[in-house]
């Protein structure tokens, strides 16, 4: 609006852009119910979404406790209006969203990636975006900074942000403070709150 180029609704409701939609009551999928996915499920709760979760490592009770139901990726893309990627980047998730899954996303679905670019086949995503029946919100890219001539920049149905998820001063402080807290617990012989175990390794980035 600062530039004076906005368009005001003249004929109501026919001028309403159908791309402007509310989240309340939508079917939403979260891929990866780690700490990000679980917090996101909490944030989504007031919107009364029908929450689907794809995560083979998380017990059923954790998924139901987050208000979701377990599903496969195929079931998720068939059902969900919004799919949000929150999984780690490793061998098991590399190009998890392959051409088949990307093409199977519902018409006018929204794909959000705040996790890692490697989860998505970018070429297939570009092809689907070019058809104009998918929306994407992307914070992470195969090459960062994103090159000036990257075709993603030309997609009007893609909202791009420069890898800003998480990188706040409050987050930086929290990550260091948790380590200092745990270091002091280690020195005093107390159980550590953020201890890494063998069982956690598959959930880490490779």
């Amino acid at each position, binding site marked *: 609006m600062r530039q004076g180029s906005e368009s005001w609704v003249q004929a109501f409701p026919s001028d309403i852009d159908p791309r402007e939609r509310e989240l309340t009551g939508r079917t939403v999928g979260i891929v990866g119910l780690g700490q*990000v996915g679980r917090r996101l499920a909490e944030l989504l709760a007031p919107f009364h979404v029908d929450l689907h979760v794809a995560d083979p490592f998380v017990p059923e009770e954790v998924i139901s406790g987050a208000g979701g139901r377990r599903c496969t990726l195929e079931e998720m893309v068939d059902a969900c209006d919004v799919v949000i990627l*929150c999984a780690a980047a490793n061998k098991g998730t590399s190009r998890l969203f392959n051409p088949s899954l990307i093409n199977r996303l519902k018409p006018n679905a929204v794909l959000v990636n705040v996790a890692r670019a490697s989860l998505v086949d970018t070429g297939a995503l570009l092809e689907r975006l070019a058809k104009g029946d998918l929306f994407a919100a992307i914070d992470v890219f195969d090459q960062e900074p994103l090159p000036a001539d990257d075709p993603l920049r030309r997609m009007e149905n893609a909202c791009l942000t420069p890898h800003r998820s*998480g990188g706040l001063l409050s*987050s930086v*402080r*929290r990550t260091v403070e948790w*380590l200092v807290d*745990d270091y002091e617990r280690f020195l005093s012989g107390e159980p550590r709150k953020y201890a890494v175990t063998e069982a956690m*390794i598959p959930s880490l980035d490779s």
Partner: protein
Amino acid sequence: MSSTNPSLLVNLPSAFFSQPELADLFKRMEAIGPLRRSSHDTPDQIAADLKWADHVIMWSWPDFSSIIDSISPLGYIGHIDLPQSLAKAELAAGIAVSLSKGGWSPAVAEMALTLTL
């Protein structure tokens, strides 16, 4: 300060050491024992400091798993992030490893919700 106090290597991007929001945390670390700050990016660069340190706090790099057998036994390593390869090497070496990656999660989740809306 006792000479038996553990020596702590903190290997983080240099801007961390001048960030006002972190000043009190570095004071807590200094109160524990000898503290060495560094911003090494490669195993070769960090090797000497690892030999000096009893304990380490760092991000995820450098991945020093290739030299882990040649450094002094480390008791504790705290990571802001941690790749699988380094986690395996550190646990195999008997090191107590902590990971604070979850500290990013609230802001990442909020960003996901923002982009969804």
